[in-house]
């Protein structure tokens, strides 16, 4: 069991280490992720939405549907725990 797990983990580890080699260096301002959407968001939040916290602006407005999904996830978890553990209630 342990040997099998070790092999699986090593396999995953090799892919991960391999992937890192081609990544932009840590904190590189030239990375495509920072250059493309990162810059776009930073430049457009203030004129578009007008609030200071960029993360909140993206969370609630640009990617608001993700956040709706997030709220539904936590609601699902609440109902799940109710179904699994609660006894003798109406729910």
């Amino acid at each position: 069991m342990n040997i099998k797990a070790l092999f699986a983990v090593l396999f995953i580890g090799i892919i991960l280490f391999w992937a890192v080699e081609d990544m932009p260096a840590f904190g590189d301002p030239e990375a495509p992720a920072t250059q493309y959407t990162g810059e776009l968001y930073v430049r457009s939040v203030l004129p578009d939405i007008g609030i200071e916290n960029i993360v909140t602006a993206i969370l609630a407005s640009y990617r608001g549907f993700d956040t709706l999904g997030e709220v539904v996830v936590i609601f699902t978890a609440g109902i799940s725990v109710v179904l699994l553990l609660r006894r003798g209630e109406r729910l």
Partner: protein
Amino acid sequence: MTLIDHLPVLIIVIPILASLLILLAGWWDRRLCYPISLITILLQFGAAIVILLQVMREGAIRYYLGGWAPPFGIELAIDSFNSFILATILLLAAATAVYARRSVEREIGPEKTISFYVLFQLLVTGLVGMTITGDIFNLYVFLEISSIAAYTLIASARKPRSYVASFNYLVLGSIAGGFILIGIGNLYVATGTLNMLDLARLLPASFELATVHAAFLFLVIGFSIKAAFFPLHLWLPDAYTESPSAVTILISTVMAKVSIYALFRIIFTIFSTAYIIDVFPVTGFILFIATVAMIAGAVLAIAQSDLKRMLAYSSVSQVGYIMFSLGVTNQVALEGGLLHILGHAVMKGCLFMVAGLIIYRMGTSRLSELKGIAKAMPISCAAFALAGASMIGIPPTIGFMSKYYIVLGALEAGHWVYAGILLLGSLLAVGYIWRFIEIAYFRDGRDRGSGARTLEAPASMLAPMVALALLCLLLGVFVEGLMEIVGPAASLLLGGA
């Protein structure tokens, strides 16, 4: 803008609100849960049909949530492939919802019905969201909604075995979720966007990066776990066997198909056929694994002594067929594969409904205790025979048509050996389907009310089962109409119009 234009988002948001309504209405009166759930799913099905027709008439729909165009915001992108899957899964969800009522009354217990229906609704909604979203991180969010609902629904049988099955699924599902997250991160690092069509546009510039290869591997492994593709199917048999009948039908048809959809979407839309053939040649490997899956799943199915577990292993085998069509990567085989997604959902739904009925009446699904059951349950066993014939691939059923196209595609691509093995796999399907038929029809049972008493289940459970069984036949006969939907979808996946 009319309401029709907003249908892509309403098909997700209204059911979310409906699940809240189920909770509140159930608090008021428990009997209200089921009708609300059923009406919502039927409405969703109707909306899916409208969307399908609209896509066929006017081409792909792109709905920008919040009015933010990608890559800023999230979009819902529905094309001919999407809308086909959407209609398929909601058809099966509607059939399951009709079936669910009696089975839930029997297997879940009255005090849990409210939360059961809420989670049922959320599971279907999460899967719908996965199907129509055009943003890869949004896909992950909906995947987790449906996964969490599925873990709990599997455990809602309230037996120790179902808890263990659910926990195993939770562990493997979380590993899959983590892998998908790593894959999304790697794609993001290489391109800087999360929108699927934007990714498809930007990725070819960085096809040679190890980061992209790793992203491909992680996404494919992650969704293969979710879709139970052969060596990663370990959670499947227990989860299918130990959950309540309604849940088994839902996850074996709807959920498994959506995971396969995501796999197709990632391989064909985000990475293109050029990537899997030229840059990172994996098609041969996929063909090999898919063939092993077909054979191993069928052999394991034959070895089982429990009807539900046998059908579960048969699912492993059938996923192999769909993945095989993915590995062949030509128009004809992909048409067959898409037909098989629909066909397998219909016939496996029917077969699991029969198994559920048998459990409803007999309290067990062990094959050794079902001798001569055809006398007591003639309609169910006839439905089983019909869907089983489709599973084996006897003309003119849908199962025959899909396998025919897959074999044709394989021959066209020159995979003679694999095509032969595929036919052998169909023979093995005869093995496990015939086992039940023989036990049901040709063995004498112990004294079971001397044949006079019929044990058929209530009509609300029989109707969807019979409908699905007839659908196996009808879809096969009228396959020409289906090809008009499937053909554009397949050529879309291959990078055509």
